[in-house]
Every structure is written in C-alpha cells, then in structure tokens.
C-alpha cells in the first residue's frame, strides 16, 4: 500500500516539476523545477525497488548515479547563470 502512495508522490513531483519548468520566468526557477522533476523520477525508481522486500539494489544504485548527475548539471547551470548575470551587468554599465 505504501508503495502506491509514494509512486503517486513521485509522479506528483514530476508533474509539478514540468509545470514549474513551463511557468518559470527566471533561469534559477527553471533549474529548480528540473531538480524537483529529477527528485520525482528518482523517487519513482525507488518505489519500483521497494515493491517487494528485500528492496532491489539496482534502482538504488541508479538513483545514486542520478543524484550526482543532477548536482553536476545544477552546478553547471548555475555557473552559466552567474556568468550571464556578470556579462549583462557589464553590458549595462
């Protein structure tokens, strides 16, 4: 039973992430939305793992890999945003 709730939570996160991405006005919001979506996808993977005890180790490994990929993508996105802000500040003054 608890598996179903968490998969609904996961899908909820994914859908909210997609909504946020469509609605975002600022680069940072877009990055946050994508990270919310990835948290949702990882949670979905984990609910797949937790369907039958013992919890399946392969999706958990995938999630670990996914988290590191998500953080590096976030870091790269933020670096680009910082540079964009600096360049626009330069072009103004």
């Amino acid at each position: 039973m608890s598996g179903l709730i968490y998969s609904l939570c996961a899908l909820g996160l994914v859908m909210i992430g997609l909504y946020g991405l469509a609605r975002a006005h600022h680069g940072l919001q877009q990055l946050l939305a994508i990270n919310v979506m990835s948290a949702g996808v990882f949670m979905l993977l984990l609910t797949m793992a937790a369907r039958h005890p013992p919890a399946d180790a392969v999706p958990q490994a995938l999630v670990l890999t996914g988290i590191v990929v998500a953080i590096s993508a976030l870091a790269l996105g933020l670096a680009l945003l910082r540079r964009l802000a600096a360049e626009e500040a330069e072009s103004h003054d």
Partner: protein
Amino acid sequence: MLDAILTLLILALAWHCVRTTDLFEAIVVFIALGMLVALAWTRLQAPDAALAEAAIGAGLAGALLLASLRQMPEMSATRAPGAKTTGLGWFWWGLWGALGLALVSGVAAIQTTSVSLMPQVQAHLSDSGVTHPVTAVLLNFRALDTALELAVLLWAWMAQKQLFVPGRQTVYPLQGQVLKTAVKALLPLMVLVAVYLLWRGSSAPGGAFQSGAVLASAWLMLWLAQLPGLSRKQGGMRLGIQAGWLGGVTVFLLVGLLGVFQGAGFMGYPPDQAGAWILLIESAAALSIGLLLASMVLVSMPDFQEGTL
C-alpha cells in the same frame, strides 16, 4: 498514515517552491523539500539514496543555490508585481493533465508486477567483493555507470572552471574566534565520519558519494573559517588539488583497464581481490567527489578570488 502526511507535505512544498516568484524563498523551500524527500526515501528502505539526497541533493545543492543567488542581485528581484503571470492556456493544462493521468495509470499497472534483479544481485553478491548489495551494484556489476558518472561530475567542474567570473558583490567577512575554534573542533570528527562512511560502505549503507559529501562540507567549513586548507598558494597543494580532481575517474578507469589484463574483462576485478580494488576505487572516488563538490561551491562564493583553486 505517516506516508500519506509525508507525501502531502512534499507535494505542498514542491508546489510552493515552484509557484513562488521570490527566488530566495524558492531555494529555502527547495532545501526543505530535499530533506523531506530524503526522509521519504528512508521509508522506502533506500538508506543509501536517502543519505546521498540529504547530503548532496539538499545540503550542497542548497549551498550552491544560495551562493549563486548572492551573485545575481539584479536578476533576483522578483518579477514586477503587476506582470501577468503567463497563465498556461487551457490547451497546456489539458496536455499536462493528460500526461499526469497517463503516468498514474501506467505506474498503477506496474505496481503489481513483481520483477526485480535482486535475486541475481544476491546470487552473485558472494564473489562481488562486498557484502552490501548497493555498493556491489555500483562498483562491480555496473561499474562503468559509476565511472562515467564521476566523469560527468569532473566535466561539469571543468566547464565551471572555464566559466568562472570573479564575484563583484560586497561581502561581510565572518570575524571572531567562535567559528575558527568550532571548525577546529568539528573537523576531525567530520573526517572521522567520512572515513567511517567510506569504510562501512562495503557492508552497510554508505560509500564514496556520502563520504565525499561530508568531505566537501569539511573543506567548505575550512574555507569559511579562513583557515589555511584548500588553496593553491600553499606549496604542493596546487598539484595535490588537481590530482584530487582527476583522482576518482582516472583510478576507476585504470583499474577497469587493468581488469582486462587480469582476465576479469573490462571494468571487472579478479574475484578474490575484488574487495581490495573496490576499496581503493572508493577512497579515490570519495576524495575526488569531496574536492570537486567543494570546488564547485567555492567557485560560486561571491568573494572567491581567481587564484585559490
């Protein structure tokens, strides 16, 4: 019952994080969301993932976001209050709803199927060199996945190093002895925790990523307290830091290549020494993940000077 409350809380936080137009608020809510998601994952019997999510997904990502926000002052101002929020047309809402329904029905259909690779994992666990299944999958069965994922982290850092632009905002330095003494006291404990996490990775939830995250926060604490630690100026540190960055990927790939000569196939280890090789790789990976994540956060600090890394 608890799961239901947790799910509602997570979704509420996520909705608020996405809806709010104030960036600072969005980031704070995002960090809280990360914590709750980590909690939910412990409920899903995935302690490794929960540890990683808490340390990396919420902690370091939060630090990164807050530091970067600091450097985008003029852009952080929320959209002018009067601006019409781009209401998504009914068509997009329809599409969004349909996708949601499709996903729910798809996942519901899958909920009952009982397929899992766990039996194979447990069958081969004995000659994988470690006893903890997640570490076995990560570092032995699907070793190339992890190697390339470390490469993703390294290449992201390479890009950020290239994109670095010195911060221009005024910064209020944290003087006073309190932080220095606290850091001096906490640091050995954090290193101990990191090593412990690394060591127990072979038998219980833990491993390279989690210990790497703890190491990263240790380095950050050092830098915040202006204690000499992570800076190129100190003697051999320059090469040490660069070796640290590349350490994880290069060790992993070279050991993998070695596997071909030892007859265990690419990215394979001879069964008897597997445990030793995995430990070597894990320590190198932990070190380099820690250094990379720390460097990424430091580079986004407003008062970070060019030459330190």
